């Protein structure tokens, strides 16, 4: 496991020093959400009703912008070859890189979401739930995203392809993320939707790296 944590630490260090990916994702999130009220007009009830949906969609699109860097930089400079010669299975290499992506992109996005909720007149009671759901849902974003990133690592300007591969996988996360937040405002509470969202994330954490590693093996050929 030393190798695993060495890889995670290295990716965190690179993310902090290079900074570009986090900045792009957070900046995009901020811009999209702050443009929404301008486009929709000052109807506070309308904004409050659709706030959860806007936040989740903007979060997914922002995360999408940073996904291609998960493996691309390592592929370009030959690091991926050397990572593959380690005793760490490729599945765990993919898991380490997806974990680092979640720590450096998923968590910052999740923590920014409630701040942006203010712009959308999000119901006060929904804030804790919003943070909980975004924290619980973003692992799925990183670990499913790793599959798309691995599949498109050799594609020059594969951004659109990556979006087409990954966005369908994000649909369940989106649906249950939004319904968990919306449900707190209704009578049924957040329970079921939140649990399903967590289950999706847990499944993604297990299955994502396996699929990503299979894709990487093909890319190494």
């Amino acid at each position, binding site marked *: 496991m030393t190798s695993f944590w*060495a890889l995670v630490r*290295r990716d965190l260090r690179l993310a902090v020093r290079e900074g570009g990916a986090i900045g792009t994702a957070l900046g995009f999130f901020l811009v999209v959400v702050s443009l929404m009220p301008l486009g929709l007009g000052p109807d506070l009830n309308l904004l409050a009703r659709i706030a959860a949906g806007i936040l989740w969609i903007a979060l997914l699109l922002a995360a999408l912008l940073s996904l291609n860097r998960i493996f691309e930089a390592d592929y370009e400079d030959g690091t991926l070859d050397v*990572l593959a*010669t380690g*005793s760490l299975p490729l599945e765990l290499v993919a898991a380490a890189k997806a974990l680092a992506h979640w720590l450096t992109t998923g968590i910052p996005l999740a923590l920014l979401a409630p701040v942006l909720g203010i712009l959308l007149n999000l119901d006060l009671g929904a804030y804790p739930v919003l943070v909980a759901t975004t924290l619980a849902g973003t692992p799925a974003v990183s670990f499913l995203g790793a599959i798309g990133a691995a599949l498109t690592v050799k594609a020059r300007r594969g951004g659109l392809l990556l979006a087409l591969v990954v966005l369908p996988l994000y649909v369940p996360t989106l649906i249950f993320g939004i319904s968990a937040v919306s449900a707190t405002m209704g009578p049924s509470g957040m329970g079921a939707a939140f649990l399903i969202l967590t289950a999706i994330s847990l499944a993604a954490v297990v299955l994502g790296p396996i699929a990503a590693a299979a894709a990487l093996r093909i890319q*190494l*050929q």
Partner: protein
Amino acid sequence: MQLIAEDLVIERGGRIVIDGLSFSVSEGETLILSGANGAGKTTLLRTIAGFIRPASGTVQLDGGDGELTITEQAHVVGHANAIKSSMTVFENAAFWAEYLGGQAASTERIERALHHFGLEDLVEFPAAYLSAGQRRRLGLARLLLAPRALWLLDEPTVSLDVASSDRLVAAVNDHTRTGGLAIVATHVPLALERARTLTIASQRMAA
């Protein structure tokens, strides 16, 4: 320990690049791969490394650790150097030592590897400012950071000056003297000891 390749057939992009190649490399021996550009030296090295699956034939490492694949017992130095520009020379080396070795390496070991390739004055230098030859040497320093039985070197002397080439040759000779195996693809004559040359013939396009 012996690396044995039998009846290797390797296909790339619908074209047979290596057709029915058999060879073996014994403990303490260096195999030099030569051949024209495009003859399939890199392809062969990547197949031995386990990255490319051959169309038929096998590559085996007899007497190695049976629980590990060849990939896990090999150092692969390819055309790219696997260096992160935003980390220092030492941080790059320390990462590979820990990742490939499975445990944090001592500062002394890392500095010894850097010293061997003449990088001792650049330890705290950001890798972004290294020249092509210095980057190459940092890539090669990986060989000494974690012990691996099989070294697969693809054009290792590219951008190296004469002195650095000699340091590389010394490292390879040390490695084979202590029972290691090395396969080196190169166009430059190198003073490698206990070396045999395998010339790979270019395959014609299939009619």
